[in-house]
């Protein structure tokens, strides 16, 4: 077994873990991050994409609200390319208690969430599709975020500062000497090779899986996996984040993000963060609630449904999962459990990931005698290679924020019309190549990098094209294969195609009706009738098993 040595081992490649590993590296500590899937494979890659103003928490969770308000302003400064400035409305519909409006506005001011009431006429001027029966509207600085891009941005910066990030590595054992955790054994899930990681400290940032990691150290942490189901609609029927002005409930928010509008969410306790499905009644509920905000909502084309698991930390008895605080909690296991060398960062939300990282790294730095200050609130972040280069706004100040027209403007600047691998999401061949070069090893990784396969056709054309590009690029690289880059042959590529087709199918089946059902049949025509993909031979464990008689 190979041994590596580091100051800090971060477990979990979501927003929190990546924020931590970057902060550690920026303060000069040696840091390694392990993630059992691809980056953002967990909850970070499965949320609706809201950059919170804090408005949703002003009443029930004021501390969270204030944290969100501050972090919102910081993130706009340091990672503008990951954020769209959509603004946000909190609206009182006929189904909501009208007296909550004044409470909401007062609580916003108390929690430092910028708020301004606007007229219904102004609301309808800016968002004509909204329900005209809405009685009051409050505007807050909500935005939408590309959590995939943000994760890669943090990873890129962390690597530049010397951190090491190992994806598809699972922690199989934490080694204790007495009451001190001193090392971890991690397994490369692609090669089954194990590595012994000696470390001064372990930072458990495994989110919904943090309880499982803590258990490896003999420590009990109760994380309640709260399933949130979301549906992406193919139109941005609104360009502003729309929240119901009431205490948070199911299906009360529409987030316009990239080319779609996402409605969320449910909140259902699930026993296991790896095992959950999407129930038809959840999708129905989303559409019904959507109708209250945007009449006709259920007639738009639904693209896919998916769910993520919120990592809610439960340290006392709370009856309802929605009542668990959304703020984060740093668990110092030395003080809490008498076990040194490990801390867990649990709870929280995407918008506050940077603050969570700062707090966790402050604690570790103090323990390891590092006195360098945190700089993540000030230092702007780099842009990954697979991101659009062009398409920036000419306007002063706002030029770096993402905007809806940016991908098309970039394609026009680069004259890449004829080179689009994914037409729905305007993904050019160069960007797919860059994603593969940056380490993406299957189609799902590439999707998270460049959004291929996420538009209306759900991969009908681009799955075939991207598989071929992956094969061509990786087969060339495999001629000088190494431990870092295992050999890649056509059966790996076939497996990647079959696996991705099945992943898309999982997201599609809950929303297949109307045009999207027709699209699914067209995709079947392409992959079965035209391509005969059901006859591909693939490495069984990676996708060959996906063509079955099973119903």
């Amino acid at each position, binding site marked *: 077994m190979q041994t590596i040595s580091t100051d800090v081992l971060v477990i979990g490649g979501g927003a929190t873990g990546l924020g931590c590993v970057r902060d550690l590296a920026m303060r000069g500590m040696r840091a390694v991050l392990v993630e059992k899937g691809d980056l953002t494979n967990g909850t970070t890659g499965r949320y609706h994409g809201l950059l919170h103003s804090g408005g949703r928490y002003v009443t029930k969770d004021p501390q969270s609200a204030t944290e969100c308000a501050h972090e919102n302003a910081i993130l706009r400064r340091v990672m503008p390319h990951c954020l769209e400035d959509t603004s946000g409305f909190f609206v009182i519909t006929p189904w909501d208690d009208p007296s909550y409006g004044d409470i909401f506005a007062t609580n916003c001011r108390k929690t430092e969430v910028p708020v301004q009431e606007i007229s219904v006429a102004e609301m309808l001027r800016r968002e004509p599709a909204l329900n005209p029966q809405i009685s009051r509207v409050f505007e807050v600085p909500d935005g939408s975020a590309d959590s995939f891009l943000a994760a890669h941005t943090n990873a890129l910066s962390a690597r530049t500062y010397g951190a090491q990030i190992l994806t598809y590595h699972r922690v199989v054992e934490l080694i204790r000497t007495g009451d001190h955790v001193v090392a971890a054994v991690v397994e490369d899930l692609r090669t089954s090779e194990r590595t012994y990681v000696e470390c001064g400290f372990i930072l458990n940032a495994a989110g919904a899986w943090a309880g499982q990691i803590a258990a490896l150290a003999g420590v009990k942490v109760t994380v309640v996996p709260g399933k949130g189901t979301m549906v992406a609609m193919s139109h941005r029927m609104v360009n502003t984040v729309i929240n119901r002005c009431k205490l948070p409930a199911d299906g009360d928010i529409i987030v316009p993000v990239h080319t779609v509008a996402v409605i969320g969410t449910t909140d259902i306790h699930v026993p296991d963060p790896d095992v959950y499905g999407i129930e038809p009644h959840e999708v129905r509920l989303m559409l019904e609630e959507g109708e209250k905000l945007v009449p006709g909502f259920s007639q738009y084309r639904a693209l896919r449904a998916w769910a993520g698991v919120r990592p809610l930390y439960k340290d006392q008895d709370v009856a309802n999962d929605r009542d668990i605080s959304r703020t984060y909690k740093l668990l110092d296991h030395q003080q809490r459990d008498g076990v040194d060398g490990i801390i867990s960062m649990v709870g929280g939300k995407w918008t506050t990931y940077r603050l969570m990282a700062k707090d966790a790294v402050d604690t570790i730095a103090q323990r390891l005698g590092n006195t360098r200050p945190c700089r993540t609130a000030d230092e702007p972040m780099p842009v990954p290679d697979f991101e659009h280069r062009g398409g920036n706004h000419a306007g002063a100040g706002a030029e770096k924020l993402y905007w809806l027209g940016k991908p098309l403007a970039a394609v026009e600047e680069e004259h890449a019309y*004829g080179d689009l691998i994914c037409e729905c999401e305007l993904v050019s061949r160069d960007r797919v190549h860059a994603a593969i070069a940056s380490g993406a090893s299957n189609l799902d990784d590439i999707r998270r990098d460049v959004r291929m396969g996420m538009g209306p056709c759900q991969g009908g054309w681009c799955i*075939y094209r991207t598989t071929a590009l992956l*094969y*061509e690029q990786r087969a060339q690289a495999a001629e000088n294969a190494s431990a870092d880059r295992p050999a890649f042959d056509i059966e790996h590529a076939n497996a990647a*195609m079959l696996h991705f087709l099945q992943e898309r199918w999982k997201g599609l*089946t809950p929303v297949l009706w109307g045009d999207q059902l027709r699209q699914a049949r067209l995709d079947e025509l392409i992959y079965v009738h*035209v391509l005969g993909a059901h*006859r591909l031979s693939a490495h069984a464990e990676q996708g060959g098993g*996906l063509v*079955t008689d099973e119903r």
Partner: protein
Amino acid sequence: MNYDTIVIGAGIAGMLAAIGRAEAGERVLSLSKGHGTTHWATGCLDLFDIGNADPLAGIESLIVHHPDHPYALAGIDAVESGAERLRAACEAGGYPLVGSLRRNLQMPTAVGTLRTTCLVPVTMAAGDARQLPRQGDGRGPLLIAGFHELRDFFPPMVAANLRTLGFAAEAAYLQMPPHDRTLDFSTVSLARLFDQPAFRADVGRQLRQLVQHGTYSRIGMPAVLGLANATQVVSHIQSAAGALIFEIPTLPVSVPGIRLYCALEAALLRAGGRIQVGSFVQRAEGKGRRLEAIYSEAAAREQRHYAARYVLATGGIAGGGVRADHAGALVETAFGLPLRTPNARTDWFAVRFLSRSGHPVFRTGVAADAGLRPLDAMGHVVYENVAVAGSALAGCDPIREGALEGVAAATGWKAGRL
């Protein structure tokens, strides 16, 4: 204007029905929302996928065991004569289909697997898997050639998968010959370039060099080798290259499918039929067991059409002839005919996208009698003067059964000859 027959839908089923009636001397109108599945599919005729066995014999046995299957409704005579009429239409367009209804072919696909089909255009004939060089058989290997600029065909992947099947296959990208298009290469725009003699001569020269160095015996290329006169284009490239050339169907838009449609369109116009594309038939008026009139929508107004008989060939869910709403209701979009569907929405799909049995929802269609007349749930004829053809019929999954064009041709032709 009064017609004897109005055919709704312009895929293979609708076009053959219209041709049949027009050739019988009727005044025929073909009314469609757009083009049919021809433009998405391979441009071959898939009859019945039972591997290497005799497909026609397979259908004869299917008819005995599944009397509700569209092939059973059409009858074995229409299966044969429908395919032959399609073949004759292509032949007349100088684009013959080759093969025999008694023997399936295995043809390479754009991922490098083999697909089962029955009749293929002559431009694909040399791709018959039985004739392809195998590893170690001493023949010059197969070359799969394409263009970087075309995003719908990737030679290295095709060749690599063919090698896993034991074929001797290599891949090459060709230089795009000089041309005046700069922005985009779709299958159709590339096919138009191949119609130009200078363009294909340049490709032929490149292939000749490759053949001389690599001793290739056959060359597989994306199915973009000409739109208007593909047979001639392939024969030119073949003599320039000094090796047999065959086309492989690409991702849609399907150039061979467009050629097939053009052959059918020419046959219908020759027979005096009228074609109106861009009209979406959305409702119909019946009186008792007769359909009286139908209404199409185009350019923001309804148009009313009358005929003595109607043929519904609007396709299934893929063609848009059947539509589902989010509550799980399925409707036939043109006349509102009763549908035979799987039970509940929870039964619509298999867990696996590529599950061999397919997805039950795609077997949804109109039940019909031996005269292809639509039936209600009780088995009573809904309209005496309507025939249903093609994928709009219940009782089969034409894609999964490898019978997409076969069912269309058999039932379409039967509707044209009733």
